[in-house]
């Protein structure tokens, strides 16, 4: 038993309060105050998550750093926080990415600066809340509350078609979430008046109920992941969102859906998960192969990376829903988790790279570029690294998760592993082909000849990510070690039928 700590609350509320403070600085006249304040908030927010990692006991699957206090007694909703090996890493990842996002928007955002930075800080706190919540309604509140700042970020600072994209993003995710809400209330009544997620895990449910709940959960989480065929909001949202919005969306927000599959669908509905694993695997493979091919033909870099995100997230859901004799395959689940973290770094890096180019050229079209290696050599080198990681080159973070999932897939069924492995070809094709057209070749566009290489701020942002991508690829142990016990417990739990 650990002593009572409040690190999780700090991880949630430090960024939120920092966001409110930044918002209070007011108009753009005070932007020079808002920016350092936001950076301070983000760094502090990341700092308070470090004790979570250093103090974490990887030997137990129990929830750690728990905090509990009643919140709404009349419906038995509690402010109940805690992390296990699965959620811990995402809190760190989220807080880390927030620092980068604040830096990335430093000079680029010139209108309503304080509102922009506040939105990201508040979002960061709310997403930490999603990963830390052990009460289903608390989870839902954080899950939903995220929509408000993201809607504003896309709509206010986005591209020309931002209104459409913001609305589509909001309504798509809300549709799923509302069915999720009804399911949670149903479970609350079944569990005799408790919203504790742990109580839901123990709740016996009939197969019919499990299947219905599975689809209700699926509606909420698959939209968020997003899985094929409900992914169509993502390219729109990414293309229109400002760089920071795309980064947070790809690196963190998509993880919420996948994380929810692990937290809710698998342990609450084990029998339905086994029964419907074929369905999930099929959708995941469609995402991997078909969306990969779709990415190949994109002319817009952000759209290409958005589709590549869908394909990579397909790997995550594939890893989560493969069974071998009614038991989850631990290496595949861990592979999915590793893939989530790696994708958090890589997609953030890729969107930041596009952001760097867009800030100079105000175009996302591949055709407008070419020959960047001549004018921006440092940038070209860094982007090379990220492009390689995105296509799953061994030694970089993208490879680890994909390899683990493919290993698991082969033990599930050979053909699944075979189809999944095609991603290594397709992923390399769309990423490297884009890289070639943008970076190499002759300078076709006179504007490219006038470009300046990345400045110190951009170098820090991309450099930090490069270290993370390389480090995780060479030595993934710190990431996988913390999750082992929790994943084993999950596998054991899901193997027990609830019927």
């Amino acid at each position, binding site marked *: 038993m650990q002593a009572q700590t409040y690190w999780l609350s700090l991880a949630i509320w430090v960024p939120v309060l920092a966001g409110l403070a930044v918002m209070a600085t*007011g*108009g753009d006249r005070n932007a020079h105050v808002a920016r350092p304040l936001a950076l301070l908030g983000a760094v502090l927010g990341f700092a308070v998550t470090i004790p979570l990692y250093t103090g974490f006991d990887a030997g137990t699957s129990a929830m750690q750093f728990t905090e509990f206090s009643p*919140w*709404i*007694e*009349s*419906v038995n909703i509690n402010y109940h926080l805690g992390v296990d090996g699965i959620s811990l890493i995402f809190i760190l990842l989220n807080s880390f990415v927030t620092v980068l996002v604040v830096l990335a928007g430093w000079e680029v955002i010139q209108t*309503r600066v304080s*509102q922009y930075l506040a939105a990201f800080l508040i979002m960061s706190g709310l997403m930490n809340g999603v990963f830390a919540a052990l009460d289903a*309604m608390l989870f*839902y*509140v954080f899950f*939903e*509350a995220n*929509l*408000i700042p993201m*809607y*504003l970020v896309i*709509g*206010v600072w986005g591209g020309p078609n*931002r*209104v459409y994209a*913001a*609305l589509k993003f*909001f*309504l798509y995710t*809300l*549709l799923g979430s*509302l*069915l999720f*809400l*009804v399911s949670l*209330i*149903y479970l*609350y*009544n079944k569990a005799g008046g408790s919203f504790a997620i742990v109580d839901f895990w123990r709740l016996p449910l009939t197969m019919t109920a499990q299947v219905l709940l599975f689809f209700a959960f699926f509606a909420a989480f698959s939209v968020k992941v997003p899985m094929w065929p409900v992914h169509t909001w993502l390219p729109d949202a990414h293309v229109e969102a400002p760089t920071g919005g795309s980064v947070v969306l790809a690196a963190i927000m998509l993880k919420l859906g996948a994380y929810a599959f692990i937290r809710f669908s698998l342990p609450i509905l084990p029998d339905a998960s086994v029964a419907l694993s074929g369905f999930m695997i099929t959708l995941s493979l469609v995402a991997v192969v078909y969306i990969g091919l779709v990415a190949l033909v994109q002319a817009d870099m952000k759209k290409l990376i958005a589709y590549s995100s869908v394909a990579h997230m397909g790997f995550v859901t594939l890893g989560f829903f493969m069974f071998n004799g009614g038991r989850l395959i631990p290496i595949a689940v861990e592979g999915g988790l590793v893939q989530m973290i790696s994708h958090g770094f890589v997609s953030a890096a890729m969107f930041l790279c596009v952001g760097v180019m867009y800030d100079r050229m105000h175009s996302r079209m591949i055709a407008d570029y070419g020959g960047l290696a001549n004018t921006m050599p440092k940038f070209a080198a860094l982007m090379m690294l990220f492009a390689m990681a995105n296509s799953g080159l061994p030694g970089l973070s993208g490879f680890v998760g994909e390899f683990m999932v493919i290993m698991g897939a082969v033990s599930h069924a050979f053909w699944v592993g075979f189809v999944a492995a095609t991603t290594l070809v397709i992923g390399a094709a769309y990423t490297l082909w884009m890289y070639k057209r943008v970076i190499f070749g002759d300078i076709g566009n006179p504007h490219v000849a006038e470009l300046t290489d990345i400045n110190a701020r951009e170098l820090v942002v991309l450099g930090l990510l490069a270290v993370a991508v390389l480090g995780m690829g060479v030595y993934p142990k710190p990431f996988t070690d913390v999750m082992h016990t929790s994943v084993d417990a999950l596998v054991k739990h899901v193997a027990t039928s609830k019927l």
Partner: protein
Amino acid sequence: MTETTLPFMFPAYAEIFLLAMALLVLLVDLFVPERMRWVSYALTLASLAGCALITLAVSAGVGGATAFTFGDMFVGDAMGSALKLACYVAVAACLVYSRRYLEARGLFRGEYLALMLFALLGMMVLISANHFLLVYLGLELLSLSMYSLIALNRDSAASTEAAMKYFVLGAMASGLLLYGMSMVYGATGTLELPRIAARIGTGPVPELVLVLGLVFIVSGVAFKLGAVPFHMWIPDVYHGAPNAITILVASAPKVTAFAMAMRLLVDGLLPLAVDWQQMLIVLAVLSLGLGNLAAVAQSNIKRMLAYSTIAHMGFVMLGLLSGVIGGNLLSADAAYGAAMFYVVTYALMALGAFGIVLLLSRAGFEADALADFKGLNRRAPWYAFLMLIVMFSLAGIPPTVGFYAKLAVLQSVIAAGRVWLAVVAVLFSLIGAFYYLRVVKLMYFDEAEDTAPIEARADMRVLLSANGLAILLLGIVPQPLMGLCLAAIRQSYGLR
């Protein structure tokens, strides 16, 4: 505790005080010159404060029990006191928000103040009614004051038309209600609400007459709530009435309509719950559907909010119809408490939304088109933020109070075993989210067309900010209000 231990007419002290004050305001206003109108205004606000104090004292005096007076026609209970307090707050907010608007149009007169107080008196009587006749009396006092208030700007054809429409339809609804009451009286031989319930529960009563009477009574209640298909008056009245009156129509009377439904259906006709719950299901689903769908097509924010009201009343009915499950009242407190929480918080949101509309209005400009909200974030970021909170709350997005209102109602619907109804409700809420988001879009994503500076007195600025922040704060800490609603229902109905 019974009547004998309390002073005579004790539960009705607030009503008696308010009647005296309303007459006093009317009288005083005759003698104060135009530039001294603030005297009558202050007197009106003071009457509301007085009423609040008296209601609190009465509530403490009866000490959680239910007290009767006027030969058991008038009831003083926890639910009544709580709802009355909500009405005082709402009417006070209406007065503060409306003052500048009415002054700019030369409508800030003694009649307005007195009629507001008479309307409030009608609401209070209705809330405390324990007898068919008193229900009718309160309803008519409220309605007649409202008709006159809507026609306050007598030179405006739209207002007069709205008042006329409301009057004709309202008279018909009153007729339906009276007709239903007469049938129930014929079947049970009493006009007193608890006795009606007792008679139906114990003795043989003519089923057909009773159910026929019930249908008419439910129609009357549905008219007052504005449920489909008795909603026709709502968009026209909201649109036609001056903004300062629309804010009243949208807030306190909704709370009253909830009380009326509780008194008639739960106090009086609980043994027929199985029948009226079925009727409310139909009304609720129709209201949720039509309200949300029609709101999407509006370009006028008052009309949009009118249709949104219809949808919200659908949610209130969902709470009301989830009380009796399989003949027992085990979770009735949660269901009725949820409906009460919903209606009180809805009134708060309506005050916020129309408060912003009033804030943007000025002499010769109504600010009631959706386009008038364009670029508000540039013009006045703080008020845009308040409106943002109100809109997300109406859409039911956490962490605003609108979410917990919906959560509590959905919880009771699902506890009553009607999961399909909850699914229907959330799907229509999704459509609802679209038009609330559109307002946010106009405020935040679009450029301003109207650049006139926003002027308001300090009291309005403060109250409006408090109103908006309350919606957010109650969303973060909903327990006090939710607990209050539950406790009020439990005490009043002796549940748990």
